[in-house]
């Protein structure tokens, strides 16, 4: 190596911070600020929240989008500028400027992100405290997740449903739990999500601000039917909500007294026990995909298992699903319907399915 110590280290030395570099730095800075403000204000990604908590989260999110856009532009801007400006000329075998550091610069880019981050944390904390704050007129709804359906219980009215109805503008306190594995209750349009866990009650506040029908989604992997564990939230004005409540209460009383319309009762049970989560059935408006579609089950049930009548087959399929596994399907149907259903409900459901010709 000693014979090579004499040659030069650099070809044409690259200027470290000339006027072009300065201009670029200023341009990148200005673009970053402008783009940050524009993106933060416009926020094309998340808008139109249907709850007051959601609106606050969206505002916070917009702030993050603005700051992230600015940082993004700064990094990509300097990267691109360097790529264009400092590309090596093909014949240039020299070295770049031997810069090893700059204390002021390094303090600067340690301190500024630190400040930004502290600001973001404080702002986030305030939003969090706000969306967690209970209002005195809260209405409590108990939510239970189970593989693979949601169940809602209104303690004020003693009614149980498979669909969530909430009055517009009134804060609702959801008390969420699970009957089996973990689930997560999520209404995307309201930006609210909370895990459902067995042996534990978690809570979330929702104040709906827009009437409408919004999907309820399970967001925690809970087994084969996780993707179809969905329901919906209906937001309606207080009077409409009260009418709905009365209808539910009435339906419940009628069902106890005498089953009025067996078909309607069947539909209700089908959705109440979460069959809809897994079995498509046009008559009940169900779209589940986990199990076989039950359209026409009444006509084919007699021919599935030799020696079993249609009624026996359907009843066994519900009470002891593993007795016969339909080809190409997984044995994931819950095995505890026998315990969970009253004899009357079971009979009504079997009759209802037998009608599906």
């Amino acid at each position, binding site marked *: 190596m000693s014979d*090579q*110590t004499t*040659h030069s280290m*650099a*070809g*044409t030395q*690259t*200027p470290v*911070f000339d006027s072009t*570099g300065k201009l670029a730095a200023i341009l990148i800075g200005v673009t970053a600020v402008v783009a940050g403000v524009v993106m933060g204000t416009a926020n094309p*990604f998340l808008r139109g929240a249907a709850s007051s908590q959601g609106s606050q*989260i969206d505002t*916070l*999110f917009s702030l*993050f989008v603005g700051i*992230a856009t600015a940082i993004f532009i700064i*990094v*990509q801007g300097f*990267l691109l500028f360097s790529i264009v400006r400092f*590309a090596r000329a093909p014949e240039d*075998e020299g070295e*770049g400027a*031997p*810069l*090893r*550091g700059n204390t002021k610069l*390094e303090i600067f880019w*340690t301190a500024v*992100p*630190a400040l930004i981050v502290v600001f*973001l*944390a404080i702002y*986030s*904390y305030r939003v*969090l405290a706000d*969306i967690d704050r209970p209002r005195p007129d809260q209405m409590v709804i108990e939510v239970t997740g189970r593989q693979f359906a949601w169940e809602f219980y209104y303690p004020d009215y003693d009614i149980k449903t498979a669909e969530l109805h909430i009055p517009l503008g009134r804060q609702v306190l959801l008390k969420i739990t699970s009957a089996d*594995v973990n689930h*997560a209750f*999520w209404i995307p*349009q309201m930006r*609210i*999500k909370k895990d459902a*866990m*067995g*042996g*534990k009650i978690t809570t979330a506040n929702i104040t709906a601000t827009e009437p409408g029908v919004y999907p309820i*989604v*399970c*967001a*925690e*992997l809970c*087994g*084969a*039917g*996780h*993707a*179809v564990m969905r329901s919906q939230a209906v937001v309606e004005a207080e009077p409409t909500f009260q009418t709905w409540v009365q209808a539910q209460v009435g339906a419940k009383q009628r069902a106890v007294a005498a089953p009025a319309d067996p078909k309607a009762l069947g539909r209700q049970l089908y959705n109440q026990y979460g069959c809809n989560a897994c079995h498509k059935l046009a008559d009940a408006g169900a779209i589940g995909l*986990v199990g076989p579609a039950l359209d026409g089950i009444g006509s084919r049930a007699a021919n599935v298992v030799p020696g079993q009548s249609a009624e026996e087959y359907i009843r066994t399929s519900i009470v002891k699903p593993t007795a016969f596994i339909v080809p190409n399907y*997984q044995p*994931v149907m819950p095995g505890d319907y026998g315990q969970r259903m009253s004899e009357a409900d079971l009979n009504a459901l079997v009759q209802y399915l037998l009608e599906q010709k």
Partner: protein
Amino acid sequence: MTADTVVGTGLVRHGGRKFSDYLVFNTDHKVIGIQYLVLAFTFFIIGGLLAELIRAQLAVPNNQLVTGSQYNLVLTLHGTIMIFLWIIPAFVGAANYVVPLMLGANDMAFPRLNAVSFWLLVPGGLLMLASFAVGGAESGWTAYPPLSVTTPVGQTLWALALQFIGFSSIFGAINFLVTVFNLRAPGMSLTRMPLLAWAIVATSLIIMLGTPVLSGALLLLILQRLLGAQFFTPGGGGNPLLWQNLFWFYSHPAVYIMILPGFGIISEVLPVFARKPIFGYKLIAFSSMAIAVFGFLVWAHHMFTSGMDPFLRVPFMVTSMIIAVPTGVKIFSWLATIWAGKLRFTTSMMFALAFISMFVIGGLSGIFLASVPIDIHVQDTYFVVAHLHYVLFGGSVMALFAGLYLWYPKLTGRMLDERLGHLHFWLTFMGFNLTFFPQHIAGLQGMPRRVYTYPPEFWALNLISSIGAFLMAIAVLPFLYNALRSLAVGKVAGPNPWRAFGLEWTLSSPPPVHNFPTPPVVEGDPYGYGERPVPGTRVVPAPGVAGGGE
């Protein structure tokens, strides 16, 4: 240089190595390094094919390609394989090969333990494949109980596989730490160490302190599954959150296990192709250690929507956001490193530059996630999937490729074809953004993760994503072809094809079996571009400019 390199037709012999040496228990760190890399890459392809299956199923709504439980199995194995059998072992393999060379050591501190670490990975990988074959590991790579105690027997094999992989990691980490501390060549002071060595120290510390906690959690999971102990199930009085705490106590630091070596590699690649010293050496080294320490104090940011005590969310939000500071220091130092350099856009450099660009997107979405109110909305959605691929693919995988293109000549004695390299790069880069950028939006608009089907409104975003995934798979082909073909017909590299500093480049390519016959002389850190001449290379004097020299 020593004439270990056998040049001629066919393969460049690896410093006197036979092909069969790579198939058996061998204690040479260079052999073990390549064993790791080949095994890991095999699993990358397996994990990648599983990903393609995921994207095929999700290309259209209501697709019937796989069932719900098959889908869960595929996504669990995809996540687990990519993390535990691709990224982690691939980095270990690369470091195994180059770090002892960079330090001027003749091998790792415990050569036999090193081989044991590798060979523990083999049963781990086989058990993982077995769990796929029998089915049942269907609860995601995070394996939350109670679901993970109700799933069929494959879940137990999955947990056992992770135990093996964990032991492999722990022994490897101890080995790296002792190697870096004790086997440095004379003159190689701590501040002359390559930054990759610093990164490996930080990584090994995390593995050492984190992985045992995962082992403990897995032990409990296995005992619950086999003995019916009720650790995690509320029915028996147990606590599902216990698993989440133990799992994330390991698995958040584990994401830094998967990125710190990448940071180290980038710090090696940029100076070589920018022809400049690394900017801010000490702060980069220090920030790796800071990330290692802080990384242990943020784990509950994965549990913001769980049943954890709500007041804990705030401290964990703050610590999570603080990680942006040391990470930002690295990003800005790298930008300063290429500033005023003489950039050569080799494939290695392209991947390194893309790393900076893509990792920042993933890091920024991480900051969104760290904010509790935002996370309440996006947790367990495709926004998280987008985040994790931007940091893991845009970060870790890009860094790995940058390193592979840099050191391939050292490992094999042959150059890779640069045209194919650029093809690989551009296909990957485009496919990657096409696949994962739309997922941010899908998540924000209401698409949860780990679903085998979705409402039709998300069709467009998912179709783009699936097309991108298809491009990414195609991108792997030129790389595979290039890597295999160049073994035989690539241009002979010579000891130092990139005119780089670093002790590894003072040896023949591939290096002799015993690395350094005489202890190397360490003149300074390996970033002296423009300050000292690169040993063993001839620099054409350029007219009219006074140079440094020694």
